[in-house]
């Protein structure tokens, strides 16, 4: 029996796994090309040393570390947002969570590799395990990123089991893989119960881990004595920034794959409206943090701090700084608070702006501080080399490739959760709603009224 005979209500969600268009292959070829180029760049760097980059003294951390912070930030899209939505029983989460979690898994793997790319001696990486010093924030970081990666992969996998079982039962390609991964899931009440319990535990666990990850990344900078970095606000500031860029990336991915795989019926305007509102709220929160951080610096007016401050506001980095303010604050707030512009297109534009803006924010936090040491050294302007740009391009295409690859093996939208939503949550939500109201709702009555409504 081939899959075409199965007339599932949610056939659209299965289709991408079995049908591949020509443009998909073209995209794969192009992206693989970019990836191979970046790989070549890295091999060049391995042979030649970090001299192949544009880094120098005193700007001894640059592109790789910026990308590291940026990618790990994006990874907060997923698990954190999906856990919060699940926890708050937001019904509109159903078609969103899977994609969010996939983003986390892939981006975390890519982002986590960046500090290794940045090492002068990657061959000595094992020293971190053999004689790591737990007093160093880099070790905290290693620990928390590993924990987050593990937790979020499990958190991606467990809610996927019923879908894998569906795929297994359909027959067709990759049978053996599905058989192993489905873990004998048959949807018995007992299994269902265990599954739900596992998801519940994981989602509560994953939230503090996610928050700790970006807090610790912020502490890599915050724990130093350097002007512009040594700030108590950095932990929460970075977390907010991470969620901000995460939501934006999620929106972009959702819109792209909605178009590609014709998910219009599942990812509706309303989903984007909600995500848009969320984006707006986080945008304001981010602006508040940014404002608080810079006002404190400015008011204190310490000379070393002010050199970094001026470098950002009116010095060499002013174009980046003000562009960031434009795309991270002005643009999203205008677009998202206006009914006319808060369409899917508008939200897409705002999200692309935010992703660019958040990358710039990482750049602006990292480089100006290094470029303005306390003692009077001559400092040049840092410009990335081809090697660094190549690796950044490769990282981005690895992300897209990873996502595309995933979509060919597993459904991008959780099928069983969609079905569950259709079957049982209408009743559940009405029940819950009535419980908010005075009086005691009677189950039978509620059910009857729901049936009548439908």
């Amino acid at each position, binding site marked *: 029996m081939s899959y075409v005979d199965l007339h599932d209500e949610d056939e659209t969600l299965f289709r991408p796994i079995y049908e591949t268009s020509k443009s998909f292959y073209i995209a794969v070829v192009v992206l693989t090309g970019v990836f191979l180029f970046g790989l070549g760049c890295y091999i060049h760097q391995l042979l030649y*040393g*970090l001299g192949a980059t544009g880094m120098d003294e005193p700007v001894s951390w640059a592109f790789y570390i910026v990308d590291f912070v940026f990618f790990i930030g994006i990874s907060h899209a997923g698990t954190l947002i999906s856990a919060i939505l699940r926890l708050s029983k937001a019904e509109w989460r159903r078609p969103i969570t899977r994609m969010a979690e996939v983003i986390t898994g892939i981006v975390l793997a890519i982002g986590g590799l960046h500090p290794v790319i940045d090492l002068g001696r990657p061959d000595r990486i094992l020293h971190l395990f053999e004689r790591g010093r737990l007093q160093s924030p880099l070790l905290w970081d290693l620990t928390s990123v590993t924990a987050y990666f593990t937790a979020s992969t499990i958190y991606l996998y467990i809610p996927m089991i019923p879908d894998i079982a569906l795929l297994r039962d359909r027959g067709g390609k990759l049978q053996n893989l599905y058989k192993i991964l489905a873990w004998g899931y048959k949807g018995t009440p007992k299994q269902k119960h265990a599954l739900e319990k596992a998801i519940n535990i994981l989602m509560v666990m994953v939230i503090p881990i996610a928050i700790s990850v970006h807090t610790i990344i912020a502490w890599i900078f915050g724990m130093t004595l350097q002007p512009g970095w040594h700030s108590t606000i950095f932990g929460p500031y970075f977390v907010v920034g991470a969620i901000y860029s995460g939501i934006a990336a999620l929106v972009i991915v959702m819109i792209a794959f909605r178009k590609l795989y014709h998910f219009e019926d599942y990812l509706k305007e309303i989903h984007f409206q909600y995500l848009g509102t969320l984006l707006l709220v986080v945008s304001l929160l981010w602006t508040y943090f940014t404002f608080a951080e810079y006002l404190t610096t400015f008011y204190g007016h310490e000379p070393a701090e002010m050199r970094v401050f001026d470098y950002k506001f009116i010095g060499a980095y002013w174009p980046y700084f003000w562009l960031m303010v434009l795309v991270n604050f002005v643009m999203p707030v205008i677009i998202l608070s206006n009914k006319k512009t808060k369409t899917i297109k508008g939200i897409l534009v705002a999200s692309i702006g935010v992703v660019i803006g958040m990358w710039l924010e990482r750049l602006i936090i990292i480089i100006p501080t290094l470029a303005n040491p306390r*003692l009077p050294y001559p400092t040049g302007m840092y410009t990335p080399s081809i090697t660094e740009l190549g690796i950044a391009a490769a990282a981005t295409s690895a992300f897209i490739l990873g996502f595309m690859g995933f979509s060919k093996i597993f459904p991008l939208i959780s099928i069983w959760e969609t079905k569950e939503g259709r079957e049982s949550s209408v009743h559940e939500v009405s029940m819950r709603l009535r419980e908010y109201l005075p009086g005691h709702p009677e189950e039978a009555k509620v059910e009857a009224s729901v049936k009548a409504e439908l």
Partner: protein
Amino acid sequence: MPKYGMVIDLNKCTSCQACVTACKVENNVQIVSEDDAQHGRAMFWMKMLTMEFDGDYPNIKPKTLPRNCMQCDEPSCIKVCPVRATYIREDGIVAQIYPQCIGCRYCMANCPYTVKVFNWDRQAQPKEVEKTYNPDVSVRPKGIVEKCTFCVHRLQDASEKAKAEHRELEPGDYVPACVEACPVDAITFGDLDDKKSDVSVASRDYRAFGLLEELGTVPKVRYLNAIE
């Protein structure tokens, strides 16, 4: 246990840079290509810093200051090192273990004096330089961080010699190369804990100050202010 420290008298210093050169030769510090030097990758453990310019062009008078590693007693660099490739010895010297460093450059980012230098790559050295390599100091490979160690190999030499001669290490036995090279004796070196030593007396002079002392790094290299 002595606590080694240094006092540099800016009244005496003529900015001749003999210390800069002596240090570079003594410690086999890599000579980088012109391109790299232009790019800000020149490697110096001892560096002449121009702190400020007095007067107007063309009658300017730069105020300079020779700057090596401050050998902080509370070093920011060792706090952040993930693998203990940099550590503080009992005698106060902040040392570097080259084979251990993974090149993450966190210590560079956290040194408030921007003292540490990185081997961005390893270039072929001029023949004459290779011939005059100091056999007591290892040549560093690419990808790791290095900095002034108060010529710790000289301390090792001196203590071994003293031991062979069955005597205690005496004050003049161990001095770093920069101290030896200074033609005007602007640099005093020795045990800070010995209240009678020259360096200890100088470090308590009314002209004495430490660079960026306010950060709490407790630098063991101190300066005597230049007074007209």
